[in-house]
């Protein structure tokens, strides 16, 4: 079905604009038209459909659900809910405090916050359509692993010591309170009529598309430029054997860049098609998406520099491990991609 967008781009770029498919400009413009139309179409349809389904999921219920879980299940659920729960990054502080003051361990809260920017429905849809289901599945597993392990490390180090005072106090108060089984009851889902769900989905669609369309254009534009102007085989020749140092370089190069997953995925597509090893590509892209300075500045309100520094190091280390592991097993994992 998605072939339609390739035909459309053929027609528009080569017939209407009269570009030559053998030129750099021709392939770049073709890539740009195909990817923007495909992505925007998928976004509109899928955001609406998914929003209909999750209209009744709110943070209070998610919190109560995680609260009732055993610690290790907690990391898994924290990260899983981070992936599916809609929430705007400007809400991360209230969310962080809401979880912390309910006695949820710092690591579980951070598993939620780490995974949240990496995985969302938009990223999954785009990956699926551009790079196939195998890659999408690997990306989701890796995104959750980054959150889960990051959280576990924080708790192992008892990192809640380095919260700002007021947050640490709120956590201790809640964590020290006697807990009875079944105390954290999950509130009932709000009953919603279809009209209410439709309204929610419509608002959600308007809000998300309004926020990310620029990122899509920038991301696809960069991807298109890479696609047309980096000579085929350049990455393969220079970095193709997954030299070990290419992974840390990629992770550090992604740091100062800040984009959301939507903008990065078309770039990822281009890099992989040009022969950059998948692990190196992932290290670069996850670093761009998950470690962002605006987010760190926000977290400064509830954390000391020491804790922020620690989180930063943990994230970087995680991206490098991901890069190395995937480079090592990638040829076997993505055969035929």
């Amino acid at each position: 079905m998605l072939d339609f967008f390739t035909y459309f781009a053929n027609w528009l770029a080569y017939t209407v604009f009269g570009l030559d498919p053998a030129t750099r400009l021709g392939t770049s413009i073709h890539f740009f038209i195909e990817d923007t139309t495909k992505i925007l179409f998928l976004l509109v349809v899928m955001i609406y459909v998914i929003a209909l389904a999750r209209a009744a999921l709110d943070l209070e219920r998610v919190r109560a659900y995680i609260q009732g879980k055993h610690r290790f299940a907690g990391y898994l659920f924290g990260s899983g809910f981070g992936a599916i729960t809609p929430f705007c990054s400007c809400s991360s502080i209230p969310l962080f405090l809401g979880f912390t003051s309910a006695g949820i361990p710092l690591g579980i809260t951070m598993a939620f916050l780490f995974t949240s920017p990496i995985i969302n429905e938009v990223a999954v849809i785009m990956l699926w359509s551009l790079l196939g289901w195998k890659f999408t599945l690997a990306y989701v597993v890796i995104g959750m692993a980054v959150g889960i392990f990051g959280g576990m490390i924080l708790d192992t180090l008892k990192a809640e010591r380095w919260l700002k005072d007021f947050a640490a106090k709120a956590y201790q108060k809640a964590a020290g309170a006697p807990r009875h089984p079944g105390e954290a009851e999950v509130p009932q889902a709000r009953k919603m009529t279809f009209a209410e769900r439709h309204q929610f989905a419509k608002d959600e669609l308007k809000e998300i598309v309004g926020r990310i369309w620029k990122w899509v254009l920038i991301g696809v534009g960069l991807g298109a430029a890479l696609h047309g102007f980096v000579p085929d085989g350049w990455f393969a020749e220079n970095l193709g054997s997954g030299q070990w140092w290419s992974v840390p370089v990629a992770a550090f190069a992604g740091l100062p860049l800040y984009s959301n997953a939507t903008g990065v995925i078309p770039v990822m597509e281009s890099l992989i098609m040009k022969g950059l090893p998948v692990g190196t590509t992932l290290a670069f892209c996850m670093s761009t998406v998950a470690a962002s300075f605006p987010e760190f500045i926000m977290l400064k309100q509830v954390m000391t520099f020491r804790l922020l520094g620690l989180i930063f190091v943990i994230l970087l280390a995680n991206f490098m491990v991901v890069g190395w592991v995937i480079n090592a097993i990638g040829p076997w994992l993505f055969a035929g991609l």
Partner: protein
Amino acid sequence: MKTFEVLGTGCKKCQTTAESIERVASELGQTVTVEKVTDPAKIMEYQVMSTPAVAINGEVIHSGSVPDHEKIVGWLKP
């Protein structure tokens, strides 16, 4: 006179929320005070997890989005 508190750590949506409450109030010819609460400790006390949120007299009446026109009119009714 009603006093509204808009809770949020200073994102654009919180700004919009405060402005729309003031605008609707002046359309209805009412004077209201709108205070912006950006201190995370205070927001935590209100137990709000998604911002922007709105409180009147210390009670949270809305959270998670920019309230629409009708909703604000509802709050301003005597």
